[in-house]
């Protein structure tokens, strides 16, 4: 493809390790400067930079990908090996897939669309995004929205702490008036406790063998530190227990829970064991009103989500393809519009010139009304004659047919540039073979 088109050069989690990605990631002022710099490069009409922790991609609308490639090589010379490049329809499709979260590390995650929107906002704020990118991005956002609402790609749970939240919600509804106990200082445990505290728990209790780490953790999750030795009592106080200690054996035993359940007057108890090896005896879950889960149970939900999303990805890809096709068709239709405008201008000029000639012949024989009727008739003839060709040209252009606009330009002897019609006389039209030679080039240029 020659001429102006969309070029995309970038690297992502598919192609480059984190060390490379983190060196190239840009934000705020630096990103703005980069956009301004890109835009100032010759041959670049419009530019957009999508920079997230998983990808850095530069899109330029212009005459080559050189500027986009230079963006990377200037910042990290070793990035060249990790770059991929797309152009034209392939680049359009890539952006659509990125926005629809089909190219994400976790397919269907919802953040990427916001990040692309932000990138577009920055680019248009910096004056780097023009009409082409505006249309492109809006279409990409619309495609992403369709994918989100029409497929299940964005559904399901993708993290362990989310699974824990979901489980607790299905057992207790909300956690208002209830307490969470965080046992041990594991990272997953802290994350889950934070997510659960957001369900409205009254208290978060933290127990850890090392008081120092326990206190720090309690502060981090907004909880109260309690002595590990109090565990049997804590089991009567808390309704949700998250266990992630590094202990090699069961810390919470069936017997301990059995005693606690009596003291709790059988209020439900949810035990979530995030430790490997397990710290909660799986037999606890056999007790009435006790709901016990381990890492495997939670992982199963996450991997089921991934499977379901993979299954839905095919449908999402189909939607993206439809949207890409529609975008490209519209672009081509827009390319056909100049031919139409010129054709009309050409015809109207002829008609008006002929009307004027007729009126001059008649001299003062006609009053104002008569003169207006003659002009109106000339215009009406043009409209009637052009009605069919206009409709067909529009239809051809929107179905992606670029041959017909070219042929029309050639047939009617329309020049690419708007200039005075060579001869306003109708008789001059048929022997336009010489003009036809010229306008063939125009036809080709219009197609490009």
């Amino acid at each position, binding site marked *: 493809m020659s001429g102006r088109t969309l070029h995309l050069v970038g690297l992502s989690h598919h192609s480059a390790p984190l060390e490379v990605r983190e060196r190239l990631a840009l934000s705020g002022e630096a990103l703005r400067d980069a956009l301004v710099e890109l835009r100032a490069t010759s041959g670049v009409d419009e530019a957009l930079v999508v920079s997230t922790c998983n990808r850095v991609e530069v899109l330029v609308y212009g005459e080559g990908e050189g500027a986009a490639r230079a963006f990377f090589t200037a910042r990290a010379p070793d990035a060249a090996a990790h770059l991929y490049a797309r152009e034209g329809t392939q680049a359009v499709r890539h952006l659509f897939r990125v926005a629809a979260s089909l190219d994400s590390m976790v397919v269907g995650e919802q953040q990427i669309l916001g990040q692309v929107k932000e990138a577009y906002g920055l680019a248009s704020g910096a004056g780097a995004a023009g009409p082409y990118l505006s249309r492109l991005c809006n279409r990409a956002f619309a495609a992403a929205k369709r994918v989100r609402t029409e497929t299940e790609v964005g559904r399901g749970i993708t993290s362990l702490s989310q*699974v824990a939240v*979901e*489980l607790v*919600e*299905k*057992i*207790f*509804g909300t956690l208002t008036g209830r307490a969470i106990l965080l046992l041990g200082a594991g990272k997953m445990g802290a994350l889950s406790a934070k997510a659960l505290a957001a369900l409205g728990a009254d208290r978060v209790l933290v127990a850890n063998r090392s008081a120092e780490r326990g206190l720090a953790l309690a502060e981090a999750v907004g909880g109260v530190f309690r002595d590990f030795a109090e565990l049997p009592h804590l089991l009567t106080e808390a309704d949700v227990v998250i266990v992630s200690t590094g202990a090699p054996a069961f810390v919470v035993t069936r017997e301990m829970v059995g005693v606690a359940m009596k003291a709790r*007057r*059988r*209020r*439900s108890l949810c035990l979530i064991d995030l430790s490997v090896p397990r710290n909660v005896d799986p037999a606890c*879950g056999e007790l*009435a*009103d006790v*709901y016990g*889960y381990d890492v495997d*149970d939670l992982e*199963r*939900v996450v991997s*089921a989500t991934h499977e379901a999303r993979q299954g839905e990805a095919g449908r999402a890809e189909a939607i993206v393809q439809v949207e890409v096709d529609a975008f490209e068709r519209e672009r081509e239709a827009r390319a056909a519009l100049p031919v139409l405008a010129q054709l009309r201008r050409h015809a109207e000029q002829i008609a008006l010139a002929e009307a004027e000639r007729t009126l001059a012949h008649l001299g003062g024989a006609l009053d104002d009304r008569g003169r207006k009727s003659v002009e109106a008739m000339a215009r009406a003839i043009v409209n009637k004659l052009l009605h069919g060709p206009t409709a067909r040209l529009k239809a051809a252009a929107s179905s992606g047919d670029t041959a017909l606009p070219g042929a029309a330009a050639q047939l009617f002897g329309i020049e690419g540039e708007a200039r005075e019609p060579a001869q306003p006389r109708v008789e001059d039209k048929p022997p336009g073979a010489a003009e036809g030679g010229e306008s063939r080039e125009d036809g080709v240029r219009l197609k490009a």
Partner: protein
Amino acid sequence: MSLVLVRIATALYAVAAVLYVAFFSRPRHLRLASAGFWALLVGFAVHAGAIGAGCAAHGGREFFTLRGGVVLAAWLGAGAYLVLARLYRMPSVGAFVTPLLLVVLTPTLFGESDAPAVPAEVVRHSAFHVTAAVLAVALFGIACGVSLMYLLQEREVKGKRFGALFSRLPSLDALDQLNQRLVRVGFVAFTVALVLGTVNAVALWKTAWSWDPQVVSSVGIWLLYGAMVQLRHTGWHGRRYALLTVTGFVVLVGAMLTLRVVPGATRHSGSYGTVVQAEGTE
């Protein structure tokens, strides 16, 4: 009561049931649930018309038959659910209650409506007694439905089956709370029915207690539900409570059907007052 109106009401309940079940399978379309609510509301209004017409034509004697009782129970149940739907945001319950209404109402749609020769005195005395008793049955019925939902959800949660049912059914706590409240209100209605029944018995049969099987079984059921209300305070909840609710309702329906189907088993059907009044005058 007008069978035509009952049929129309049942058709509207069927529409509501279809909408609620569709909502259950497509939980993202909340509009289905609200459309179901409106269909149910209109059905309830038509149903009210049928019952009003029945009262106008036969002075309420129809509701002393099994068929009439079922029609009344379904109406009160639909009304109770409409109130619940406003109080709690649990549209998925509708997918369980509305089909239940259909199952209960369908057998009443066939055959001729009969108005038994219940003595006018019995009808006059018993209007509130019957209504309270039928309301209690309707509430226990809904509680039974909610308990079944609880048992289903408990199986999913405890069995670590995080599938479609798991995500669509309400939380265990919400179902448990709802069940408990229904049982409580139903118990109050049942108590009122028993008290009014005793008053009636004194007035009509000149004795507060008789070993009539209906009276005996009613007291038994009252004790069972009373025990459930009491057990709640000692911490009974969840699965055991749900099982108890289902058991209670099965016993209740079993007793009711048996007593109605066996002729002459109880003074609560058939001749009512004639025997009684003869006894009373002796």
